Structures are given as C-alpha cells and as structure tokens.
C-alpha cells in the first residue's frame, strides 16, 4: 500500500488481486443483491484509491480495507433504511441482536450434490443476524482476529466472541441437518 501511495500502480494490482474476492464476498453475503454488492465493492476500492495518501501502517492493511468495506456497508444500510442500530456492547441486548430478523434467503440457485453443503452453508450464513454474519464473514473472508473484529465493529472482544458463538452454532446445526438429510437420502 505504501508503494502504491508512492506512485507504483503495480502495487495496487497486487493488493487488488489478493483481497478482491474476500471483500466481494463480504459485501455480497450481506447485501444479498449482486448489483448492490458490485456498487459497494467499487465504492470501497475507490475510497481506498482516494485515501492512499493518508494511509499509515499503524495496523494491518486487511483491517484498514475491511474497515472501509464495513463503513461503506453501514452507510448503505442507513441510506436504505434497513439497519436498526442496537447497542451491541451491552450483554442485555444480546437477545435483541440474536432476534434480529434474518436476512432474506438468496435466490434459489441450481444445487449439485458436491456443492450442496457449501450452498446450504452459504444460505445459512445469509440467515444469520447481521452482527453475527458480519463477525463470521470478517473472520472467514478477512482472516481478522477477534481484537481486530472488535476494533473494526466498535464492540468489545467478548461481544465478538458471543456473536461468533451463536453464528457457528447455527451453522453447525445446519450442517447436521444436511448430513441427516444426506443419510436419509441414501436410505
């Protein structure tokens, strides 16, 4: 990033190739519409280009990149009216976080057996509450640590742990259901 900020365009190409998939999936899994995801994705990278001069290597580049993506996504949800802000640092509101309406299921896609698990898992992620989904995606796509997720989302580390716990429990349940269905199918 420093090389690109110094004027080396090939440095940007390397950064983009390394992180474009994770950022795109992070946005796509939360927006549930490809067009919007593309728009947000382009906005995130344009913001990065414009902010290259002010970049300071005080944290990981990944953390800074996903912060840009997180902020752009929040701005989109605010403008579209789909976001209900709830204080997530308070443990008393954990139930409210959990009770947030799940995202609408993505459009049905042709499922093959060898991709069924992944599809079901991806579908299960989209049904997770936004906070849990975001924590799960930041951990899986961004490869961020608990502390980095906490700093990025503005919550405590324990809250991040809680969100991830709930997300994983639901996803495991979905996997068990898939295995049971597969077992029953073979029967």
């Amino acid at each position, binding site marked *: 990033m420093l090389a690109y900020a110094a004027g080396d365009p090939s440095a*940007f190409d390397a950064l983009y190739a390394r992180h474009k*998939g994770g950022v795109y999936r992070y946005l796509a899994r939360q927006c549930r519409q490809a067009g919007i995801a593309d728009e947000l994705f382009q906005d995130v990278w*344009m913001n990065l280009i414009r902010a290259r001069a002010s970049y300071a290597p005080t944290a990981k580049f990944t953390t800074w990149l996903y912060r840009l993506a997180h902020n752009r996504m929040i701005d989109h949800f605010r403008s579209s009216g789909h976001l209900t802000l709830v204080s997530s640092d308070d443990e008393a509101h954990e139930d409210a976080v959990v009770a947030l309406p799940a995202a609408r299921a993505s459009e049905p896609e042709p499922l093959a057996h060898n991709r069924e698990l992944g599809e079901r*898992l991806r579908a299960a992620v989209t049904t997770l509450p936004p906070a849990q989904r975001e924590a799960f995606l930041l951990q899986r796509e961004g490869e961020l640590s608990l502390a980095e997720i906490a700093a990025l989302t503005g919550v405590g580390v324990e809250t991040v742990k809680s969100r991830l716990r709930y997300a*994983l429990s639901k996803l495991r349940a979905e996997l068990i259901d898939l295995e049971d269905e597969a077992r029953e199918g073979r029967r």
Partner: protein
Amino acid sequence: MNEHERDPRIDAAWRAASRDEPPVALDDAIRAAARRAVDSAPQRRRDKHWWYPFAAAATVAVIAVGLLQLTPPEQVTPAIVADAPKVAKQEAASAPPQSNAIGPGTPAPVDVKKKLAAADERAESARSNERAQKLQRQRDAADKLSQMPAQDSARNVAAPAETPPSASSFARRSEPFPAAAPEAARRDAAVATEAQGRLQSAPAAEPAAPPPAAASPPAAGVAGGTVTGAPLEEKPLRAKSALAKDASEAQVQAKTQPRSVEDWIKLIRELRSAGRIDEATKEIAAFRSAYGERADSLLPADLRAFGTPAAR
C-alpha cells in the same frame, strides 16, 4: 474447543462455497481508476530529490555573487600614489582644470604616469647637475692649489717611476674606465702637487712639469722610488688636510665615477708615500677585486707585492 473458535468442517465447507469473484469488467474499471489516479497525481512523491538541481544552481549563483563582491576593484596601488613626487603633484595642482568627469583634484591615471616620468627625468638631471657642480668644485680646488708659489711648482717635477705609464699604456689601461679621465688627471695633479711639497727637491735635470691645468697625463710625480722622506716644512697642516680632503673626495667620486688605472695607481702611491699604509692596502685590495686576474699585470712591480700579507 471453544465455541467461538473456528470449526474445520465449517471452514472446509465455506471454502468450497466461497468462489464468488467480482466481474471482470469491474476489475478492469477499478484497476484503470487506480492507474489514472497515480498518473495524474503530482510527481512529488516519486522524485523526492527534484529540488536538488535548483538548490545546486542557487548555491553556485550565491557563491559567484559573493566572490565578485569580495574581489576588490582594480585600483592604483598605494606605492604608486605614495611615490608620486611633489613636483608632479604641484604640477597637477597648477594644471588647468580637468574635465568634469575626472575632477580638478584627481588627475587621470595616464596623466599621473606621464608626470611621474617627467619628474624622474628632472630628478636625474638634477643629480647630474649636482655631479657636475661637484666636479667643478674639485676643479676649483685644484686651481687654487695650482696657484701656490712657483718654487712649489718646481718640485712638482717627478722623477720617472720605475714603470712610468706612457700615453699609449694609459690609453690602453684606461679602457675599462673611459669616463672623466681629464678631471681625474687634474685632481691627481693637485694631489701630486701637495705630496711633492713634502719631498726634497727632485733631480734638477728633470724639466719642469707642465702645469696641472693642462689636460695631459701627469708624470708619476708620486713615484714611490723617488721618495726621499723630506719632512714638510711649508704649509704642513694645509697639505695634510688637503690631501685628506682629496682622498675622501676621491673615494666618493670613485663610487660615482669609475677610476682609471693610472689614477688608481697614483692614489695608491700617494697614500703609501704619505704613510697611510692601511688606506693604501685597502685601495690595492679594491684594485685587485676590480680587475681580478689582470690586477697583477696592471700594477707596477713595487705595488704588486704591496698589500699582500707577505709584504706586510
């Protein structure tokens, strides 16, 4: 395993499902925008040292200007101004006013040089005038001495020396010092007259010597061989003082005008006959240093040995 930690099964399933990529067109658009942003940005970040050539040029310019200002302008050296003679300055003051550009009190450098040259010429002419006046005084002194009683003049006849210098030898030997031979001869004649005053009468067979005023080379009146040691009976103090005066004048004149061989030898003989051995020795030493190897050939036999340590 903590519940919030990563589940390998879920991770594997998620990697299999996470193959979504942005569209190629979107990739191209973003890359192009990134390249445009870098190309259009100022080159400050690329060339951090862009200002080096300007700084170097400015530094060189400052140094050059500083050197030019520190270099003193060409001006007349103090020595030339200090050596300007008073005559030149007086002439400059009395000269008609110069042009307005130069100023009345400050003559142009070319005029100063001309005036200095003229002043030098005048100084040289003054020196030569002084020299001539001095010679005239000596001549006058010789004339006065020549007006002594006739009996003194009869004694001026000198016996021939062992090696009386002939006219031809005089002419030959006087070649290195061709200047002022007549004046030196006249002076030496006066000295010889005084020296003869102390001697006994010369052999009567000798004819009377020509008067000192004549410009002929005198006979070797002070030949050492004819000294008989007769004491001075007439005007001893005056003769001695005149001799000392003439000797000192001879030394001064020797510095200003080169001495002829004949005159020099005559002087040495006179000094020796007068008992002034040290001075005679010095004169011989000077003669030898002047003529070098030729000195022995020029000196008469009686003087050749004189002045050497063995002779003393």
